[in-house]
């Protein structure tokens, strides 16, 4: 099957899945004991039935759930995600303003995770059962066992409060103005504007949360790289390559690493999706105004248009990353192209 037809088919399958996601999010935000009215109106307003009725009417809560859902789907078709109860802005607008912060954080984290994780995993596999291997395994076990919210606190305490090496919570120091908006990533935008002072400040704020966020991913990528390299290195064609007298580094890079790529691509794609969506805890501690914070606030205030919007966005990101991963299989593995 030509690759574009495969992609088109996968994109078509996306639609029912996304509808399922909206349905699940709708059920969660509606079929529960909690009431958005109590979550969003104050004590005083609650005691006035007129205000409560007006609130229900404004957000369509007075209509039967099935009708509410159909109205939501109808609006969605025209690209309208509704309005957030909390911020009173369009959800799409909210998401657009929170997303860049998370992309900046998660992308820095995945770049770190891939660089360090692959390097450690390779070293570990090539020097199996030496102290290098043992150290790398301990580091990766630490990475996957440490609660990220705790690591964030410890890192802030040591590197910000005690040592003062990096800037504290937030994206910029108080009083600094964000660079002119191009991508929404402060580090990139400040570079584009040629503003070094803003860049170094933004980078100083970014580095700690990004490293903390990367801890789990780095551990995971190290483990997967190690185990898939070990598996490939034990195969017959590697022995053949050795027997032919090929140089060791050529064997490792051209023969082994290429064949170890498939599980690696899977885990990198999966991790990036998880990083984009799993920033809730890290963002909470570093006061990072990203999608995780938005999702947290939406959940706790039962702001259902916002919950639905965030769920849809994140599910979409997840699914698209999966698709890219599957397409990359074709690129990496010529055997798949033949079938």
């Amino acid at each position, binding site marked *: 099957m030509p690759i574009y037809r495969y992609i088109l088919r996968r994109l078509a399958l996306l639609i029912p899945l996304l509808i399922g996601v909206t*349905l699940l999010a709708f059920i*969660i935000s509606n079929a529960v004991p909690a009431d958005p009215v109590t979550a969003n109106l104050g004590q005083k307003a609650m005691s006035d039935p007129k205000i409560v009725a007006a609130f229900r009417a404004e957000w369509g809560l007075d209509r039967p759930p099935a009708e509410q859902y159909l109205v939501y789907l109808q609006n969605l078709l025209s690209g309208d995600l509704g309005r957030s109860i909390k911020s009173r802005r369009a959800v799409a607008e909210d998401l657009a303003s929170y997303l860049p912060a998370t992309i900046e954080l998660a992308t820095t984290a995945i770049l770190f995770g891939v660089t360090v994780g692959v390097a450690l995993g390779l070293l570990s596999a090539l020097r199996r059962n030496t102290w290098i291997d043992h150290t790398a395994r301990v580091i990766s*076990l630490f990475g996957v066992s440490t*609660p*990220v*919210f705790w690591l964030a606190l410890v890192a802030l305490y040591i590197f910000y409060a005690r040592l003062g090496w990096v800037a504290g919570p937030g994206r910029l120091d108080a009083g600094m103005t964000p660079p002119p908006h191009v991508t929404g990533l402060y580090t990139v935008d400040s570079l584009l504007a040629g503003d070094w002072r803003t860049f170094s400040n933004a980078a100083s704020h970014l580095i700690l949360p990004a490293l903390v966020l990367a801890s789990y991913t780095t551990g995971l990528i190290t483990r997967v790289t190690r185990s898939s390299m070990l598996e490939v290195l034990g195969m017959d064609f590697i022995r053949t390559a050795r027997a032919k007298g090929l140089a060791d580094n050529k064997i490792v890079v051209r023969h082994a690493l290429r064949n170890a790529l498939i599980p690696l691509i899977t885990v990198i794609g999966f991790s990036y*999706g998880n990083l984009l969506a799993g920033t809730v805890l890290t963002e909470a501690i570093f006061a990072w105004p990203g999608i995780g914070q938005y999702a947290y606030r939406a*959940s*706790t205030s039962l702001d259902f248009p916002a*919950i639905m919007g965030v769920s849809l966005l994140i599910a979409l990101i997840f699914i698209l990353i999966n698709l890219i991963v599957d397409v990359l299989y074709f690129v990496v593995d010529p055997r798949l192209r033949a079938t």
Partner: protein
Amino acid sequence: MSAISTPASLSRKTLRSEPGALSNVIRFLRRNPLVVLGLAIFIAWVIISIGAPWVAPYDPLKQNIALRLQPPSAEHWFGTDQLGRDVFSRVLWGGRLSLPAGILVILIAGVIGTVIGALAGFIGGWLDEGAMRVTEVFMAFPTIILAMAIAAALGPSLINAVAAMVVVWWPNYARVVRSLVIGVKTQEYVEAARAIGVPQQRVLWRTVLPNCLAPAVVLATIDLGNAILVFAGLSFLGLGADPTTPEWGRMVSDGIQYFDQWWIAAFAGLAIFTVVMAFNFIGDGIRDALDPRLRKNI
């Protein structure tokens, strides 16, 4: 999904109570010192949790404002928190919540997932299609976001946090058990059972399922550390135990407001870390044992 098809070989060797099973287990443990270490840490925590009321030097709920925010000392090994409660006692008591919560989530989600996955895989057809599409929708959500949304909607409490996690967790097990059941149901001994007239239901629950369980149990062990991490994360966000309860995630979040009193958060976090680490040791050992390809080379 090669990891799923291999476990059967190990399970037959180590998990069934055939003669020689014990010596197999002992051999496995001898070759994997990290598994022994993991088990030791886990058992130690179980003992500490059960014995907390007797072992803990102070009442974990007792406040003593005069002694608030004391650094670690001979009287208070891990210091005291913002209400003057003994952090050491609270950490010891914390295991009584976090461990059972994680195990409970895996147990309930495992049972629900197994039943749904077994029915889907065994009966097939539209039921299978439907069940798999539903699991896909659940899995399109990232764990923490879905758990957080459900826990927030149900209202913050310990039970609700567990319930939210079960809702998020079961699809994994449904998918794994389904693929195992599909693999087993075409085996000859299943056909034989059918041929001698064993009713369908009995074939599924008595013949097919028991042969799928071992790998699912292995998956559950590996998963436990993860469940404990996510549960602590929910508590940390204020969506689990109520503020007075000695729960590890909650205690770490107490530490945020008292940044300079590092001991409030540090020890609770270490407790989570040791437990999750123990499960990763155990899981790693099992995974290595299951994957013979990793053993032979270089």
